[in-house]
């Protein structure tokens, strides 16, 4: 029996809120699935749209983007700009037929260790149900 | 497919030396001993080196063709491949395709006095020729080496310049651009065209190899003309962007000439007929 499918989750998180939230989950000994690979960026405003595409190209099954709540941004408007960007970028990915429930957005503050635990657990279970994102990886096999 | 044309040989890095703040020389040896034994090249030829995952780059083979157990090349940290190359160290594996290009006509140079003029990172393509000449010393006349760089720290293979100057009938003239000298600098100070002018180099029965940035070549040519060197006696090595090295990918041509297969070594006379496309 091949081993059970372990989804690969890539999380792009902002350094000032969500990363500290994840850290808080750790210091509080809150268990959450190890499927997540955390990538720290200065702010959600710095999270380039291409990072999502790159994650799927390199084999991710789901992506999480998380940062400070509106009005909490260390750089004042990073998350506001990011929000505008995601509103349009989601529409583009949906138009292309990319599986939108593999892309998740949350605001997690430095105090929300529990929320981080819950978000990661939910995403991992959801992705386990969705199965591996073969459609994107198969693009590479079809040389075209 | 067995596309052996583009599949490199694997080589092991046996030594990396920092020449200047952004230039390193790398000594490599074939991993396959049979390939190492079968390998030979002419000084002045180049190879296309692979850093797997980054790509390929073209570098002159700057070791003498008489040294059998390794070859050497130099590179400056400027692009994606050289950035990846910068991080490699002893024992790492790189790829090599070659040798490519025509190389220096060392046979035609026999019996002649040799003038080597190099600027900036142009020392590697000159170094291989100098060592070759010194290893066949009796076949060649006087050797004059004029080498300049912007600053003292930019002089590549500086230690070997001293070694060369101790050989018989070899004159080494070092220079740095005005303002590039250090307090204990004993060499010349000035741009290469001026230094060549000031050094009263005799052009009798001489051949010159001039390599460096286009601007240096442009201002050195009139000086060589004045001291009596004819265009067909002055050689240079062209640098155009390359990918395949075997005349197929259509990238390196300057006018009618494919720099990879027809060059990279040309005489000034040939260069006059090559349009300004390099």
């Amino acid at each position, binding site marked *: 029996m091949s081993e059970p499918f372990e989804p690969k989750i890539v999380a792009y998180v902002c350094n000032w809120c969500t990363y500290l939230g994840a850290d808080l989950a750790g210091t509080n000994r809150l268990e959450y699935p190890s499927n997540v690979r955390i990538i720290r960026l200065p702010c959600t405003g710095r999270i380039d749209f291409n990072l999502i595409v790159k994650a799927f190209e*390199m084999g991710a099954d789901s992506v999480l983007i998380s940062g400070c709540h509106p009005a909490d941004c260390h750089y004042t408007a990073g998350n506001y700009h990011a929000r505008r960007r995601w509103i349009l970028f989601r529409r583009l990915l949906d138009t292309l037929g990319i599986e939108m429930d593999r892309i998740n957005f949350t605001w997690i503050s430095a105090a929300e260790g529990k929320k981080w635990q819950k978000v990661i657990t939910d995403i991992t279970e959801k992705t386990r149900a969705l199965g591996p994102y073969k459609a994107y990886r198969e693009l590479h096999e079809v*040389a*075209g | *497919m*067995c*596309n*052996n*044309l*583009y*599949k*490199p040989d*694997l080589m092991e890095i046996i030594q990396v030396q920092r020449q200047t703040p952004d230039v390193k020389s790398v000594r490599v040896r074939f991993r396959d001993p049979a390939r190492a034994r079968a390998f030979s090249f002419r000084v002045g030829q180049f190879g296309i080196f*692979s850093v*797997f*995952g*980054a*790509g*390929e780059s073209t570098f002159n083979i700057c070791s003498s063709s008489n040294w059998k157990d390794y070859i050497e090349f130099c590179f400056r940290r*400027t*692009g994606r491949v*050289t950035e990846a190359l910068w991080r490699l160290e002893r*024992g*790492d*594996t790189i*790829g090599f395709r070659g040798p490519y290009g025509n190389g220096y006509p060392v046979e035609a140079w026999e019996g002649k006095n040799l003038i080597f003029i190099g600027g900036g990172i142009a020392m590697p393509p000159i170094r291989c020729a100098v060592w070759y000449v010194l290893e066949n010393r009796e076949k060649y006349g006087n050797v004059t080496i004029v080498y300049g760089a912007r600053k003292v720290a930019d002089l590549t293979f500086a230690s070997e310049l001293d070694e060369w100057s101790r050989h018989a009938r070899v004159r080494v003239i070092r220079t740095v651009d005005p303002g590039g000298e250090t307090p204990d600098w004993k060499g010349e100070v000035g741009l290469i065209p001026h230094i060549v002018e000031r050094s009263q180099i005799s052009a009798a029965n001489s051949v010159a190899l001039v390599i460096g940035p286009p601007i240096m070549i442009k201002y050195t040519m009139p000086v060589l003309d004045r001291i009596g060197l004819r265009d067909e006696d002055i050689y240079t090595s062209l*640098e*155009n*962007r390359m*990918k*395949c090295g*075997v*005349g*197929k*990918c*259509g*990238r390196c*041509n*300057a*006018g*009618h000439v494919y720099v990879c*297969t027809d060059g990279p070594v040309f005489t000034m006379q040939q260069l006059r007929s090559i*349009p*300004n*496309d*390099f």
Partner: protein
Amino acid sequence: MSAIIHESGLRTLIDGWLASGKLVAAPVEVSGRVLYQRLKSSGEAILESRERPANSIKQFLFPRHQALFRYRLNGKQVELVDSADDTREQIIVAARPCDAASLPVLDHIFNCDCKDAGFDEARQRTTVIALACNSHDEACFCTSVGLGPSSEAGADALLVDLGDSEFEVRVLTDKGRKLFEGRTEPGTREAPALEGPPRKFDAGAVRQFLANGFDNPLWGEESVGCLGCGVCTYTCPVCHCFDMVDEGNAAGGERVRNWDSCQFQMFTQHASGHNPRATQSQRQRQRIYHKFSIYPERFGALLCTGCGNCARNCPAGLGVLRLLEKIDSRVRQQHV
């Protein structure tokens, strides 16, 4: 006496080839455009020479993206693995004569002094059935480069449309004979003489202009409209310039060969920042020189089959044809 095949017989043949696992390509109508594409069934193939396909058959021998080899990285060691390549036999049906003629031209590049195994293997397992042209448009100029509507260069067999869906089959090589053996009936109908496009320029005059035209202001004046895309080079049957890059991750990847274009800014860009061809007019000049002076000097043939794709597909209405007509008129003015 000529060998005749009916269109239905030809489509049955195609279905037979597809059934036996061969790759078959032909002009196909795709979202309002005629393009050479691999067939799923013979019904898709357009077997009459109306619109010239907007791309060319070179993609089936010199693909736009091709893995050269795979590399595996582990620590300081690297392992190179040949990439599995397609060995299936390939048949291109109803190729235009100006496409079939591209293969001998590409042979000079890929199979001259050192052999490019990828192209050479593809060439051996490919059979080209050309379809003579009984129509042409304003962009066609095959007659100006020594070809014509029923040229046989590079083709293994030539079909000539006799009307009411019958074709004369002219077998040219034993590859062609193998495909059509016993599949044609003898017939008496004579193929009509096909008349190609009028000559648009004199290749000799162009060659003469190029002999010392490198610094002629014409390049700057006539190519201002060029926007620097790669349409002319990528839809051209004989443009063959390529790039090689590595694609992969820390565990390994593959070195791939991709089409590249002399019209792109990055084509001759040095890492030092120097670019010998910094302006678009220098790049347009390079394209004309390579096709009508550099390649002819090395191999004695033109690097152009006159298909007109560059003129037809250029978003700015340029392409080789526009520039060569200008050169031709300029050379003629000098003589008068």
